[in-house]
């Protein structure tokens, strides 16, 4: 049993799932579900289909080059079984997975960096331009504040505790 990768979307194909297509030139195409299979039959290029890993890698949405990917290569020259090596390998697999996940999260963070600042700027601009949708022009003339004033409400200690208990 071997966990293969889907040719179209690059997800893992578990036993009992998907379809394998063998072309006349003996190239094997494995698909994880009929969605990928049907897209393949429509001759769609996975590099142009937004939700596939191929697209995401190509357009820099996901990590491309990393040393953790080297460990998952298919090996054609096996080594003699050694119990210690196997034990170490199993431990290493877990660790490598963790490292890869953290690196991918870091990549995502880097990609999304500065998004908040841009969103804030865009929000301020929109507020300035379209304040007429929120506050009537007459009200603006009275006081040109475009934000609501803050109101402080005093709450006694016993009341606050009582609310928490009810929850």
């Amino acid at each position, binding site marked *: 049993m*071997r966990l293969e990768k889907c040719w179209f979307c690059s997800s893992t194909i578990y036993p009992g799932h998907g379809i394998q297509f063998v072309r006349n030139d003996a190239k094997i195409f494995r698909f994880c579900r009929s969605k990928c299979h049907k897209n393949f039959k429509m001759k769609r290029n996975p590099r142009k289909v937004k939700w596939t890993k191929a697209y995401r890698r190509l357009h820099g949405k996901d990590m491309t080059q990393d040393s953790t990917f080297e460990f998952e290569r298919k090996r*054609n*020259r*096996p080594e003699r*079984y050694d119990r210690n090596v196997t034990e170490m390998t199993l431990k290493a697999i877990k660790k490598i997975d963790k490292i890869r996940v953290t690196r991918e999260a870091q990549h995502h963070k880097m990609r999304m960096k500065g998004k908040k600042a841009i969103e804030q700027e865009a929000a301020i601009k929109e507020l300035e331009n379209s304040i007429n949708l929120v506050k009537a022009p007459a009200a603006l003339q009275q006081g040109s504040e475009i934000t609501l004033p803050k109101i402080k409400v005093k709450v006694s200690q016993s009341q606050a505790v009582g609310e928490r208990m009810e929850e």
Partner: protein
Amino acid sequence: MATRIQFENSCEVGVFSKLTNAYCLVAIGGSENFYSMFEAEFADVIPVVKTSIAGTRIIGRLCAGNKNGLLLPHTTTDQELQHLRNSLPDQVVVQRIEERLSALGNCIACNDHVSLTHPDLDRETEELIADVLGVEVFRQTIAGNILVGSYCAISNTGGLVHPHTSIEDLDELSTLLQVPLVAGTVNRGSEVIAAGMTVNDWTAFCGSDTTATELSVIESVFKLREARPSSIVDEMRKSLIDSYV
């Protein structure tokens, strides 16, 4: 010594076994008869390994090997690959090949020094063969057939080829391979030599349908006959005796 055996009532022993000078691979059968024939012959000399390739029993036609290495098709599962690596001695390099033509036993005929391959084999595969098996590679056909691995059986001492091979072809192949060749049949006239028999430097196994004539041809070309003192002297007289007084 050439022996006649059967694999589950089939005479195509070369399909279900792979014999080399360093190891022997045997298919997994219902009864142990086939395996025990090889075990009886090779008990302590070379390892006899029961295996499957890609979940099938036709291992002799799927893999190609000699004492230096073993080449397996890309359809071999990881577990089978690991089993072979664990069971074979360390000098034998076990390698899985990504190749369009996956029946390597039909495409590659080799002994320990030289090999004949299917003319359409990839260049990378050819390099791998030269590297893993440590042989010189020749792209050839035998009697017009491109499946060289199935129409000839060669060992370090001799070779048997398709019966319809012309004499010129036979001479050409003989000079390439540097072994004496004979065009003959196996299993009562079957032309597919390598499927009907399997051979190494000191033993041969043929299908039980092989006639006595075919068997004697095999024994003489692969030099398997019991060495009697007189026969040795007869063959080596010219080299032993310098001059007659």
